[in-house]
């Protein structure tokens, strides 16, 4: 039995958190442009990330057009195709999803959800955004540089990435890509320190770790992971820059290119792969964990049920984070490694499935007999669960060494990772935007446009990626500009390719509806009020909507309960916000 002190003011511990001194902007510039307010920085991050994401989307159309109508579009030659693949992959993973989940949602939600006035280091936070923007600009510069952007594939494997046979290899392309990543990592580190330390030191009174919403847990854990994993990419990029510019041989073996012996020798391409995947695998979870956290909150709020197994959810997040640092070499089964290592990495990979499965069960059990409101955030959360399970199952196939070897580098892999780390997180991004847009702007997004966006995106994504599994089983390789005449690919595969492309264009069009909605609702959306979803967490309890600078008016909030008191019997409404003190009538005893 847990003893519950009668809720009253004197049970409040002495101020653990001092009110922080805020920087007060003096001009329009420091208020809206060079702002140190995490909420503005969050919007800046999000808009930048979505804009560059749009570029990646357009690139995917171009690729699909080529795959469906090989050779029809004269301007897409093989070089361009590789450049599109590379930029599409890198932008989607790093510059869109990572930046949006951590820089965008992290900045907006962490201070509000833990009851802080702002991030703990606002100045570094501001720098973080501007450095990120610089990274994006360097990346985009690749499109205009002589020789165009790099076409090395988003994995940037040397030696090919710095050789003249690869677009951008002996040109500006690879240099800009590597520098952009280095700059991105520096900027991210500044932001990341903020997110971590704000969770550690900035929480309001009464906000214990176990009272934090799972969104915060997800973003927090992902940030810790990113702070440890991105240095690996940093190291890989710096060493490759040395190889490419200063003639060292970290990664480059002796190579005869076009009849001339290059000056490099003895370098180890495998070393690069280790470094890259030491970052690359955790990166999957850096994107996934915030998505997990957000989905948990969306489901709980819109099904009016407290989250099932909160503790297990927290532990699962932490365990997944820890495990994902010891599985990287499962991306290298085909690199000729010692089979014993292959076995070790296959085992750890399969073990990760356990906490992940626990999370899925808990979401389903949260929904079970819930009062499910099919709002747009809920719809997207449901779509996420379905998609994630789907992608997870094919992932179990690929986690087995024997199965992976024949499927490696086919369209099956492309379909798999688009399901788990492409479509699934993007669905959460949408759900989250529909959910929190009213807090950011004070207005709801339009429902009709939202439903069009939802159904076309959800069903369309399946129409795109489901058939791709089949193509992969036929043996259609990935990263092929065109497959030409082959005996193992039947003509029907070609029809399928056209179908996939058409669906990709349709899904793309639906995103334009979404953009339109974002802009239209900013001016014409229905007024939302402070707490349209009747949610318990702190960000919905701010005195103003959108929250003012400093978030909380005069008094910092005090937290009296966990984040999931929904459908509480006997409560005047069907939820109790975290800020409401315990009253004798509604002491909690129901659960267990």
């Amino acid at each position, binding site marked *: 039995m*847990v003893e*519950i*002190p*009668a*809720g009253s003011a004197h*049970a409040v*511990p002495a101020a*653990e*958190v001092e009110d922080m001194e805020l920087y007060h902007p003096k001009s329009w510039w420091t208020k809206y442009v060079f702002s140190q307010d995490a909420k503005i920085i969050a919007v800046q991050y999000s808009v930048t990330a979505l804009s560059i994401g749009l570029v990646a989307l357009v690139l995917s159309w171009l690729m699909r057009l080529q795959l469906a109508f090989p050779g029809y579009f004269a301007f897409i030659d093989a070089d361009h195709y590789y450049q599109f693949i590379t930029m599409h992959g890198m932008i989607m993973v790093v510059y869109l999803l990572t930046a949006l989940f951590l820089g965008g949602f992290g900045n907006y939600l962490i201070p509000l959800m833990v009851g802080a006035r702002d991030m*703990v*280091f606002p100045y570094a936070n501001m720098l973080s955004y501007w450095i990120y923007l610089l990274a994006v600009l360097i990346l985009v510069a690749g499109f205009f540089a002589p020789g165009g952007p790099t076409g090395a594939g988003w994995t940037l494997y040397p030696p090919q990435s710095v050789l003249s046979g690869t677009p951008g290899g002996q040109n500006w392309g690879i240099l800009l890509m590597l520098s952009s990543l280095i700059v991105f990592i520096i900027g991210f*580190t500044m932001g*990341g*320190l903020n997110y*971590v*330390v*704000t969770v550690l*030191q*900035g929480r309001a009174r*009464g906000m*214990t770790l*176990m*009272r934090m919403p799972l969104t915060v847990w997800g973003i927090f854990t992902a940030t810790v992971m990113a*702070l*440890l994993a991105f*240095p*690996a990419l940093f*190291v890989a990029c710096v*060493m490759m820059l040395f190889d490419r510019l*200063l*003639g*060292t*041989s*970290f990664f480059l073996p002796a190579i005869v290119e076009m009849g001339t012996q290059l*000056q490099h020798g*003895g*370098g*180890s391409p495998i*070393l690069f792969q280790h*470094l890259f995947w*030491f970052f690359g695998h955790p990166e999957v979870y850096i994107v996934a964990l915030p998505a997990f956290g957000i989905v948990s909150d969306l489901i709980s709020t819109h099904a009016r049920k*407290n989250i099932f197994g*909160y*503790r297990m959810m*927290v*532990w699962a997040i*932490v365990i997944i984070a820890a495990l994902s640092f010891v599985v990287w070499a499962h991306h290298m089964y085909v690199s000729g490694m010692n089979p014993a290592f292959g076995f070790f990495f296959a085992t750890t990979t399969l073990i990760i499935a356990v906490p992940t499965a626990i999370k899925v069960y808990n979401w389903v059990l949260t929904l079970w007999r819930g009062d499910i409101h099919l709002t747009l955030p809920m719809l997207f959360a449901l779509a996420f669960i379905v998609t994630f399970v789907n992608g997870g199952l094919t992932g179990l196939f690929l986690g087995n060494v024997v199965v992976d070897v024949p499927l490696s580098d086919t369209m099956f892999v492309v379909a798999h990772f688009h399901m788990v780390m492409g479509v699934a997180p993007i669905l959460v991004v949408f759900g989250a935007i529909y959910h929190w847009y009213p807090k950011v702007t004070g207005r709801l997004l339009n429902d009709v446009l939202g439903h069009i966006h939802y159904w076309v995106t959800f069903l369309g994504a399946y129409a795109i990626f489901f058939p791709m599994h089949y193509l992969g089983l036929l043996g259609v390789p990935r990263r092929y500009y065109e497959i030409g005449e082959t005996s193992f690919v039947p003509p029907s595969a070609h029809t399928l390719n056209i179908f996939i492309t058409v669906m990709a264009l349709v899904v793309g069009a639906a995103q334009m509806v979404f953009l339109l909605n974002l802009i239209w609702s900013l001016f014409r959306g229905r007024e939302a009020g402070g707490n349209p979803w009747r949610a318990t967490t702190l960000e919905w309890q701010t005195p103003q909507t959108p929250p003012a600078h400093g978030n909380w008016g005069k008094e910092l909030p*005090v*937290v*009296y*309960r*966990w984040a*999931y*008191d929904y459908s509480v019997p006997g409560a005047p409404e069907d939820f109790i916000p975290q800020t409401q*003190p*315990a009253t004798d009538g509604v*002491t*909690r*005893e129901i*659960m267990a």
Partner: protein
Amino acid sequence: MNVTLLFLAVIGAIIAWWLAGQRLTSKPWLEASPVKTATGLEEPPAPAIKIGLYVFLGVVGALFSLFISAYFMRMASSDWWGMPVPGLLWVNTALLAASSAALQWAKNEAHHGSMENLRPALAAGLLLAALFLAGQIEAWRELNAAGYVLADNPANSFFYMLTGLHGLHILGGLAVTGRTTVRAFAADLPPAQLSLSIDLCTLYSHFMLAVFLILFALFAGWANDFVDLCRQLLS
């Protein structure tokens, strides 16, 4: 990647230890009302900036352990010739250690609240670190003159890259320590107000000294014997 895994294990242990103190097994849904603190007389929480520095050092640690992992993996190939460690590096090590010691002295003075010794101590720390950097550049030049150029051999490449990166970190530390020193000289601040900044500069400087010692051990080849030992234990 063994070095990196070792580093991660250490970080993991710290995180696990910290989480162990966070009541992760509590049942938050049963506990309405604020969680009580044990007594009213708790220690004030560590300043955010200090925690921030610890986290940052974690990131820097990850960075260097990854570089060191790469060093060992690359060393395994046959085209690796060790490089002689210039004697000047001993002097530089001494300078960096002295700089760290001077900052430690400044830190102690700040805690005792005495300003007279604090200023020279800070200035000495700053100067010694700057001398270290100058010494490092001189060492580069000597090596270059002796024909050990960057692209010649991976051992050379790593030497220049790692010392360069370390130097950049020192340079960053110099900027911050410099600012603190200016503040110490400029106004009649009570030492208590400087104390935190000095603490942080000292911590950073000790950390970078430790990194340098490890790098030194690497270049001098002592670390190899240790790694060979580990290899034998593992196989």
